[in-house]
């Protein structure tokens, strides 16, 4: 079943933008809830073996989600997501930034734009992530998402022109 579901991942390095399209075998309401409700988010947001722990979440424009990715050793990596726009079951935008445990954001962060649409019972989520600085990316690597990565080295041209 899952093999038929789309997963696109493209990067425009010149504009520091990542584009992702992913389909899910569920209706729009359910997928929307999975991205916008704390108790569901915490079930999938952190890539294993990390776990996600939301300390605070209020899904409203101007409000935020403050959560941690918790490593198997118990180390907490805090992040802050501030909602900047919400169109129910269609789109939401947020500013994503790492933070300390006292909610002080480590700026600059990245802008996330998530769009949702359903066709024949399958829901497509299109995500655009902008303004990731290299320093921020390196921080993600440090955070230890290293398991099971097969590093593919593309030719220089591909790296530069992708």
């Amino acid at each position, binding site marked *: 079943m*899952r093999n038929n*579901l789309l*997963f696109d*991942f493209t*990067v425009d*390095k*010149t*504009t*520091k933008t*990542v584009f*992702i399209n*992913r389909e*899910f*075998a*569920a209706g729009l309401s*359910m*997928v929307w809830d*999975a991205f916008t409700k704390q108790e*569901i988010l915490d*079930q*999938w*947001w*952190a*890539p*294993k073996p990390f776990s996600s722990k939301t300390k605070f979440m209020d899904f409203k424009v101007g409000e935020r989600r403050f959560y941690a990715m918790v490593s198997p050793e118990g180390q907490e990596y805090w992040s802050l997501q501030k909602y900047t726009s919400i169109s129910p079951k269609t789109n939401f935008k947020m500013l994503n930034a790492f933070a300390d445990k006292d909610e002080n954001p480590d700026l600059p962060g990245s802008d996330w734009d998530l769009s949702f649409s359903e066709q024949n019972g399958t829901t497509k989520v299109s995500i655009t992530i902008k303004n*990731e*600085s*290299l*320093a921020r*990316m*390196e921080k*993600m*690597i440090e955070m230890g*998402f*290293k398991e*099971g*990565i*097969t*590093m*593919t*080295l*593309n030719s*220089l*041209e591909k*790296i*530069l*022109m992708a």
Partner: protein
Amino acid sequence: MKTRRDVFQAIADPTRRAILLLIAAQAMTPNAIAEEFHSSRQAVSKHIQILTECELVKQQQKGREIYYHINSNKMKEFDKWIAQFKNTLETQFNQLDKVLLTMKNNKK
């Protein structure tokens, strides 16, 4: 803390991308690089300086000449990040597939 130049910023410029492609084939002196472009030696130097600052390019002294070549470690680091980010997202989304399946089953 000193702010470091960002690799994305460095490769956002078409001339800088062209310089990288040029020296990827072989290490070159600044003069030889400048000859390939219709811009001034100073302009090319500025581009090389930016590429050097973010460690995409390394310099090497050979006799009286300086040669610039690609810092392939930095390029790999960059590529590695992209691969890791993609992998992380894939893991998250596969987890979400399972969560959705459970939600659907519970609804029935």
